[in-house]
């Protein structure tokens, strides 16, 4: 139990690392040292450097980088790719290195007792020189490997921690882990910097790398629990995706927008809600892209901007198909009402796709968004990663209070759910199913509104056809059952009547 005292609560220092401050509920505990532990390649050095870089970029807060591993020249060069001009910052007196990297080819003989007084003096000197508020130390494991007595290094690092605290410095110390789960770090470093621990993971899951960050503890203050996915982007460094930390404070709207198809508007009781998410699920070639095109066209007719992310077809293919249905995407784009982003799912990780989608939405500010299809993105992700992606994307679109149409391709031609559906169905407001129906040796198409939150809607499965004018929704299928399960069966009118009677009285 924590003893009760009248001390003011810990203040947090906003790191400026996107998304991290959200899960850290403000940032790192100010005036304290936080241990950032991770396996090789878990982006510890980037985290440490970014902690300083964001302090400089956002608040002109100077920082000191103590490197035990890579020489400063390497760090300057590596981080230039993040567009952090460390050399310039050094000239401006905002960044100082303390170079404690091993000297190549220099053999060091230990002849008696020693301490790391010189290191401490150098760090303090650098802090005073630039009036630093932030210090990054990378990495503890490398200090230990430079000296034979680990107890001595531990003692000295504890002394360093105390010195930093006295100076009111907020610091990040990185440490190596040998495995993703298990002890916090090697050399028992958690003994002396155990107050605040952040873990970076880089787990191989289903043959795909998945990066996550977890705040293990912040002594005396709060934070979000659990693992959050993150990515490292060339121009912005670490970006954390705060999936469940995102506040779902969406207002619901009564305003309806047209689906672009008058008959579908009728089926949904007057169109989609202004701030709703619509999932369109169906087998390949079933009409999902067409439905997306109609959704887009409805927006453009109103003179409202629309953004389409296409992951299944090339731009040429998509535009040609749209022309075939009577929609001129080229013209819409020239008018500035449409922006089509075509990408192959495999070109980037899911986190990168998400960040690109978000930044396109933020810069184009569309009144509608469509993604065709989200299930194509499933190929580049683990099941869990995909779920987080879907939730994060959905909540992002919802917060903008614009309708979003997402398509999902089902694996089976005839009915059956997709993984996307199972991830998506609970957070979507409207689900529309498009299904192939085999009837008397002929493939026909069926459409139904499976769910529509907050509105009456038709429950029937209607037949639809596609031609040069788009989608035509016709009468409901009669005398046929089992369409959604993919096993349509005809039943005689007599049987229908008998079944209907079952529900009377």
């Amino acid at each position, binding site marked *: 139990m924590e003893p009760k005292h009248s001390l003011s609560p810990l203040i947090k220092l906003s790191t400026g690392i996107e998304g991290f401050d959200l899960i850290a509920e403000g940032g790192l505990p100010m005036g304290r040292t936080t241990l950032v532990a991770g396996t090789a390649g878990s982006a510890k050095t980037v985290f440490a450097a970014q902690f300083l870089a964001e302090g400089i970029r956002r608040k002109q807060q100077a920082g000191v980088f103590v490197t035990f591993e890579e020489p400063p020249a390497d760090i300057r060069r590596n981080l230039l790719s993040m567009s952090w001009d460390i050399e310039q910052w050094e000239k401006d007196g905002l960044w100082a290195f303390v170079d404690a990297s091993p000297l190549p080819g220099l053999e*060091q*003989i230990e002849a*008696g007792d*020693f*301490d790391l007084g*010189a290191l401490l003096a150098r760090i303090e000197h650098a802090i005073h020189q630039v009036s630093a508020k932030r210090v990054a130390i990378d990495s503890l494991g490398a200090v230990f490997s430079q*000296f034979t007595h680990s107890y001595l290094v531990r003692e000295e690092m504890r002394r360093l921690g105390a010195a930093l605290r006295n100076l009111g410095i907020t610091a990040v110390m990185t440490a190596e882990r040998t495995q993703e789960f298990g002890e916090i770090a090697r050399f028992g470093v958690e003994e002396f910097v155990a107050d605040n621990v952040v873990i970076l993971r880089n787990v191989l899951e289903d043959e795909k790398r998945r990066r996550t960050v977890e705040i293990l503890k912040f002594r005396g203050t709060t934070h979000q629990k659990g693992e959050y996915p993150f990515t490292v982007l060339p121009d912005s460094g670490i970006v954390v995706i705060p999936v469940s930390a995102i506040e779902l404070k969406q207002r619901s709207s009564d305003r309806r927008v047209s689906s672009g198809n008058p008959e579908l508007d009728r089926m949904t009781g007057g169109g989609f809600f202004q701030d709703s998410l619509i999932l369109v699920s169906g087998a390949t070639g079933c009409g999902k892209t067409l439905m997306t095109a109609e959704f887009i066209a409805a927006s453009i007719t109103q003179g409202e901007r629309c953004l389409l992310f296409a992951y299944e077809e090339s731009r040429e293919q998509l535009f040609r198909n749209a022309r075939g249905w009577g929609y001129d995407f080229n013209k819409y784009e020239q008018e500035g009402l449409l922006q089509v982003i075509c990408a192959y799912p495999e070109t980037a990780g899911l986190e990168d796709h998400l960040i690109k989608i978000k930044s396109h939405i933020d810069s184009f500010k569309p009144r509608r968004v469509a993604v065709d299809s989200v299930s194509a993105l499933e190929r580049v992700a683990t099941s869990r990663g995909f779920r987080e992606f879907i939730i994060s994307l959905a909540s992002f679109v919802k917060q903008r209070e614009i309708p979003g149409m997402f398509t999902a391709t089902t694996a089976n031609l005839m009915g059956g759910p997709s993984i996307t559906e199972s991830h998506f169905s609970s957070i979507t407001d409207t689900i529309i199913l498009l299904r192939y129906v085999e009837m008397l040796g002929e493939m026909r198409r069926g459409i139904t509104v499976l769910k529509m939150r907050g509105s009456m809607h038709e429950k029937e499965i209607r037949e639809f056809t596609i031609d040069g004018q788009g989608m035509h929704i016709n009468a409901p299928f009669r005398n046929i059952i089992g369409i959604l399960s993919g096993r349509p069966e005809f039943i005689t009118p007599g049987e229908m009547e008998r079944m209907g009677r079952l529900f009377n009285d």
Partner: protein
Amino acid sequence: MAEKETYQLKLYITGHTHRSAQAISNLQRICDQELVDYELLVIDVLEHPGLAEDEKILATPTLIRELPPPLRRIIGDLSNTEKVLLGLDLKPIRSK
């Protein structure tokens, strides 16, 4: 037989501690016994942190042999004479 070459030595210490004093007296003794011609410079890193930065000193005491080449580094209070001699490329006289 003592070394006749000129030795240039630098000893980095942190403040006037017992350990610093220990290192200075140990080094003085070894130099007097083993070397004919030497220059010894003692640097306190608390007074000259910039020098420690330039020389990339982490541990104190650190003894650097600048001349004759190659550069040598020995850390510790120099109480282990054998290690110091080894570090300076000197053979202890009594073992000869």
